[in-house]
């Protein structure tokens, strides 16, 4: 069971649930405390110890259902109605106990008939002696399930990646199980035109179905997670302008994750009272003047830090393809951080914090694009920004500018940029154009660069993530 549990945890990891070795130990302790008797309790208990968020809990529960739903079909009945058989086998509670009682009686007649026939048929004889057939006849579901699991491990089912591989793996598992003997026996029965062919055939069909179901489940469990990881990687390397709308949802999730990283960093700055602990050294020193009487007490002061982020986003035509994603990032940022003021501009600049707060992400982006889109004028926009927010910029303010710095030849108003630079703690400029294009044509990037603490090229999620990481490291 221990290895089953750690395999289950492997599955969870591939589904984006982070499980540390310590948590694996916890899970084992949970299993030891609860026992295996009550499925529901075990399910709740594992979810509690392995999941850390509500989303992870849902994933753990779903994986638990898939992973431990290893119910074997019932091999005891003679009729070939597979469908009916399986529906009864789906019911986990009634499984183990009933079959052990019923199986020997109903199977015994079949066994006798088969044994009689085996006297004339060496292939059947061989089959009957095989372990597989014994299990099938005795209807030992637990053993069969185990055998299929072992066979699957032998053929390396956990490497399955594409759904086209399912048939191949099913075949291999059946081979590893020793299904060949079954095939040979039914072939010889067919030649002898024996009535027992049907009985044998139904066993064979059920076995096959079991194996293929096993493969199906494993595929769902294993490759789904892996494929998602793959697509996440792909998404984060694609240029934002090339991403289609239908990926917006996934991208938004990724962006949110990133914004959250940033937000966590900034929101951790504590707001504390001014009075901290007693500064003993200073109190003693102060007492010297009073002949050692500690008349005045000195307290360590705590730094008050109210960090604030101002984010400015270009939504003009030249960055139209990126604007959506930049706004998305902005939106996510404001979503996770309480003290973000967002601004959008093209020819003029306006605050969009309120807009973002009131509307859903798609609508907010649409509105911002529609209201503030147009030809770029960085100069005028900076004037607007100065009017709106320059007074609020102080040593704890971070200003993030998202834009291509293409000013259509207008006055860049570098002086405003410089006063922002001097007042703020940090000015970050993220430019969707590649570094080589900076300064070419009407780009003012190189001039603006002088008034920024950090400039970076940013046109795919990976770059954005790297910048976020860099930011976190520097502070």
């Amino acid at each position, binding site marked *: 069971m221990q290895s089953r549990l750690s395999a289950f945890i492997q599955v969870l990891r591939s589904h984006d649930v982070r499980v540390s070795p310590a948590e694996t130990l916890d899970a084992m302790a949970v299993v030891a*405390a609860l026992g295996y008797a009550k499925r529901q309790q075990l399910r709740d208990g594992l979810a*509690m110890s392995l999941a*850390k968020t509500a989303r992870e809990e849902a994933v753990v529960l779903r994986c638990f259902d898939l992973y431990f739903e290893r119910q074997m079909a019932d091999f005891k009945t003679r009729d070939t109605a597979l469908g009916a058989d399986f529906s009864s086998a789906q019911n986990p509670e009634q499984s183990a106990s009933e079959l052990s009682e019923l199986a020997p009686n109903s199977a015994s007649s079949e066994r006798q008939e088969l044994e009689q026939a085996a006297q004339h048929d060496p292939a059947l004889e061989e089959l009957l002696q095989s372990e597989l057939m014994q299990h099938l006849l005795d209807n030992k579901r637990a053993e069969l399930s185990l055998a299929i699991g072992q066979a699957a491990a032998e053929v390396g089912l956990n490497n399955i990646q594409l759904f086209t591989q399912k048939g191949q793996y099913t075949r291999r598992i059946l081979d590893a199980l020793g299904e060949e003997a079954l095939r040979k026996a039914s072939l010889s029965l067919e030649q002898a035109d024996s009535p027992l062919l049907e009985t044998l055939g139904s066993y064979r069909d059920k076995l096959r179905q079991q194996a293929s179901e096993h493969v199906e489940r494993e595929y769902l469990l294993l490759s789904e997670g892996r494929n998602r990881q793959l697509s996440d990687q792909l998404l984060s390397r694609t240029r934002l302008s090339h991403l289609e709308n239908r990926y917006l949802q996934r991208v938004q999730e990724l962006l949110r994750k990133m914004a959250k990283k940033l937000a966590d960093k900034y929101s951790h700055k504590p707001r504390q009272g001014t009075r901290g602990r007693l500064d003993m050294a200073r109190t003693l020193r102060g007492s010297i003047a009073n002949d050692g009487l500690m008349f005045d007490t000195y307290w360590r002061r705590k730094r008050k830090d109210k960090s604030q982020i101002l984010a400015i986003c270009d939504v003009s035509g030249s960055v139209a393809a990126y604007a959506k994603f930049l706004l998305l990032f902005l939106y996510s940022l404001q979503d996770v951080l309480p003290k973000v003021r967002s601004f959008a501009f093209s020819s003029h600049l306006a605050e969009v914090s309120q807009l973002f707060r009131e509307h859903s992400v798609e609508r907010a982006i649409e509105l911002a694009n529609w209201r503030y889109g147009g030809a770029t004028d960085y100069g005028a926009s900076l004037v607007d920004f100065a009017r709106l927010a320059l007074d609020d910029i102080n040593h704890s303010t971070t200003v993030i500018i998202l834009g291509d710095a293409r000013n259509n030849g207008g006055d860049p108003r570098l002086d405003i940029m410089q006063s922002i630079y001097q007042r703020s703690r940090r000015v970050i400029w993220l430019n969707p154009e590649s570094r080589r294009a900076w300064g070419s044509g009407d780009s003012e990037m190189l001039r603006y660069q002088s008034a920024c603490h950090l400039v970076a090229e940013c046109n795919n999620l990976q770059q954005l993530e790297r910048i976020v990481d860099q930011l976190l490291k520097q502070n």
Partner: protein
Amino acid sequence: MQQQHFPQLDSIERIEQGFEALGYICSPKIATAIFLAFQLRKPILVEGPPGVGKTELAKTCAELLALPLIRLQCYEGLDEAKALYEWKYGKQLLYTQVLKEKLGDLLQGAQGLAESVERLHQFSDIFYSEKFLEPRPLLKAMQQERGAVLLIDEVDKSDYEFESLLLETLSDYQVSVPEIGTIKAEVAPMVFLTSNNGRDLSDALKRRCLHLHIPFPSVELEQRIVLSRVPNIDQKLRQQLVDFVHRLRDLDLKKAPAVSETIDWARSLLLLHATQLDESLVRSTLNVLLKFEEDIQNAESDLPALLRQSKVAS
């Protein structure tokens, strides 16, 4: 560290019964969490919307085990001086002043500075002993002889640094005081942390806890809760009001009514001698359920339809 034995926590069924006897109806999931927390000696991190009984869970647990409940309410700026321990500075200063003359006596006859200092060293730690230590909730919980139930309420409101402070306490049930050493709990306390998801807690903290998410209860469970809390209420009215609250929760509200609000509402209806829900009654008592003017206006427009549905349902 020893583990005290509580027959009340022997099995999950007994926990459920014990809680029910105290008027707290818990789902099997909650009971499993408590069972595991006790067996594995792990803290429980309880999450869920406000008013589903997170704090109540800890209180009831303390009552069930007849242990003292020690509560630490978290807020921004909470630090170790308020959570762990503090030195009694006033007492220290006072004692140094009072003992000043005594010091002269002690040092009498000492040859030179070195010897005086040497003599003083013998008493060096007097002012930093446990006598001068003011225990705050976390330390207090460790010091209880019979164990305790420690409730760290709304841990998401505290600062990031404070979380790190909690780690030692939560995983090893000990508090380190640099001047004295490590103070270890004789009996491990039962620890509950509650969070309203105000922010994401650090992974380090989450890893040390069992994660229990309490959602809004199902209709059936909530009816049992109302029955246990407001036993005198008419059965028909109870069904109606629980159903109505569930329908309210489906609306797009700023703050959905929680279990505590359902109970309050049931109590107010009982006070008003209501036997069934009618529109004017609901309209006049809606402010018990909904706490935002905007929500009340929203709900009022849907009121007739909601009432009709819940009447049909019950």
